[in-house]
């Protein structure tokens, strides 16, 4: 059973939603038309990053749920909450991002997983990719990296 997500910026999203899809404004914000309304889980202990990532996702009509620690993230996934996209930071309260990702993958999650982190070496990048992360991105999360992923998840 899908978990009911708290609504995103609904009035703004309604204004932008038309019969064909969802258009995104701005010059740095790459314009795309989404066919579906995607959902994303953002796991980051830092509020500034969490807010920026969620706002960026909202601008593409993605409905988001944010958690600031690994325990809540694992509990959410274990309770059958479903998302199109999961974004995880490496450094988290309770368990580190690598361990959280491993546990989420062991539960059997098959959605797109993004590791979005401030700094890391090649060995860490390889470690995350080896346990099931699809894409490894250095912060900040930006449209250049996000848009191709959204297109893929949207089936474009």
């Amino acid at each position, binding site marked *: 059973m899908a978990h009911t997500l708290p609504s995103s*910026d609904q*009035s*703004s999203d309604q*204004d932008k939603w038309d019969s064909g899809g969802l258009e995104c*404004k*701005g*010059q*740095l*914000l790459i314009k795309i038309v989404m066919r579906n309304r995607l959902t994303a889980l953002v796991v*980051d*202990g*830092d*509020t*500034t*990053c969490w*807010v*920026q*990532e969620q*706002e*960026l996702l909202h*601008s593409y009509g993605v409905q988001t749920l944010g958690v600031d620690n690994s325990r809540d993230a694992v509990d959410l996934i274990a309770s059958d909450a479903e998302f199109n996209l999961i974004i995880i*930071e*490496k*450094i988290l309260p309770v368990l580190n991002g690598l361990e959280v990702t491993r546990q989420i993958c062991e539960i059997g999650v098959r959605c797109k997983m993004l590791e979005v*982190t*401030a*700094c890391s070496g090649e060995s860490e990048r390889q470690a995350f990719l080896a346990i099931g992360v699809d894409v490894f991105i250095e*912060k*900040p999360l*930006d*449209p250049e990296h996000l848009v191709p992923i959204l297109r893929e998840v949207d089936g474009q």
Partner: protein
Amino acid sequence: MDRYGMQNQIACIRSLFDQGYLDEQFIQLEELQDDANPNFVQEIVTLFYTDSTRLIQNIELTLNSRPINFSKLDDYMHQFKGSSSSIGAKKVTSECAVFRQYCAAGNAEAYIKQEHAILRKKLEFYFQMMGQAAVAQTT
């Protein structure tokens, strides 16, 4: 917004870019701001300063403890780099990367705090100007 107000605002923000305090990420934040979320930039910057002030306090405590817990310090600097890059605080972000070098010299804390404080003053001036421009628009 009247023309004079807009020109001032543009000059102010351009100066912050020219001096290397802000990067393109800040423009992206401005583009995310809309009628439904009209104060997004100011809110996220305020959030950054609340969070980063706490982080700096933690960094201070860690640096003052003996022996220094470098693993914890690394985690704090990781968070600091992440949140400063998220708001486009270019100089603060790049100084996080050289933090360790100064750590060895014993004056890392002062250096990071200095850059953090300088950026704060400049961003406060920017928001003050935006407020004045908004008032000018209504009069």
